[in-house]
């Protein structure tokens, strides 16, 4: 097989992928074949060293998340088969997909409702503290010292608890934000793979001469 035949056939096998991804893959293998030929191999030997077309295509498709990979593999076999499966299987996969979305959204909402609950508790204590201080003012107006002291004490204690609960709620919210992000990532993982968990700093270096 010649280099061009290999690359064209590879392009056909990966036709289910976006065009720029196919081109990038072809460029990688074109470079690898050219490097092996520079190293003294014949064109046929260099092409053979890449492995079978099936292996090469499978290795590229393996990087896709579960759902797009299954679609790509079916589409690779036959586009008609993909449509047939999509239509015939729709009574199964559409309700399953809707259930999946509903469960994912519900868990996400529940996570944030937890955070909201902690904030409501903090706000309730804060409100109680303010009311306690208002009662203190009333006590001062009517000149009832024990009532003033009790109200002031309850007011300050409530405000103190509100501040503590607020600090806890803030910490909990940050933790819950991380948890919800983790859940969102897990929920979309069958459809979208993000192995790049670190920043892409310097992903494109400045061109240099070879």
């Amino acid at each position: 097989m010649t280099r061009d035949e290999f690359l064209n056939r590879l392009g056909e096998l990966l036709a289910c992928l976006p065009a720029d991804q196919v081109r990038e893959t072809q460029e990688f293998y074109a470079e690898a074949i050219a490097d092996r030929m520079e190293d003294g191999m014949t064109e046929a030997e260099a092409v053979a060293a890449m492995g079978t077309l099936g292996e090469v295509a499978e290795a590229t498709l393996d990087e896709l998340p579960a759902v797009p990979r299954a679609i790509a593999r079916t589409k690779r076999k036959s586009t008609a088969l993909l449509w047939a499966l999509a239509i015939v299987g729709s009574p199964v996969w559409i309700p399953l997909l809707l259930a999946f979305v509903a469960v994912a959204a519900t868990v996400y909402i529940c996570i944030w409702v937890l955070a909201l609950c902690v904030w409501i508790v903090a706000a309730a204590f804060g409100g109680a503290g303010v009311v306690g201080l208002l009662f203190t003012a009333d006590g001062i107006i009517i000149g009832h010292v024990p009532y003033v002291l009790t109200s002031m004490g309850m007011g300050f204690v409530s405000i103190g608890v509100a501040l503590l609960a607020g600090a806890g709620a803030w910490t909990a919210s940050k933790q819950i934000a991380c948890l919800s992000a983790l859940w969102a990532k897990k929920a979309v993982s069958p459809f979208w793979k993000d192995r790049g968990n670190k920043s892409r700093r310097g992903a494109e270096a400045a061109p240099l001469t070879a």
Partner: protein
Amino acid sequence: MEAQMKRGFLEACVLAAVSGEESYGYQIVKDVPASMGLTESTLYPLLKRLEKAGCITARSAEHNGRLRRYYRITETGHERIAELLAEWPSVQEIYRYVKGAHHDAR
């Protein structure tokens, strides 16, 4: 070699291959120990994964009238190698345990 373990070793080998001077696909295949059985079809997805994770950077440069893609390790990549090396004592411990148990059973 067990697939998951091999994947970890391959990742470390490829990072090591680009940790000195920048390197390119075929050179990496030649540099990585033959026992790993690294081929272009294994290397390509691995490079994409490492690039996406910020462990390596890539650039295209002209070579003999054509473009060649060069890869270089980043600080994140060095950290990944350090993490993999830090796991080595526990791998050795498991090896000693399995070997000892296997030997005692015979």
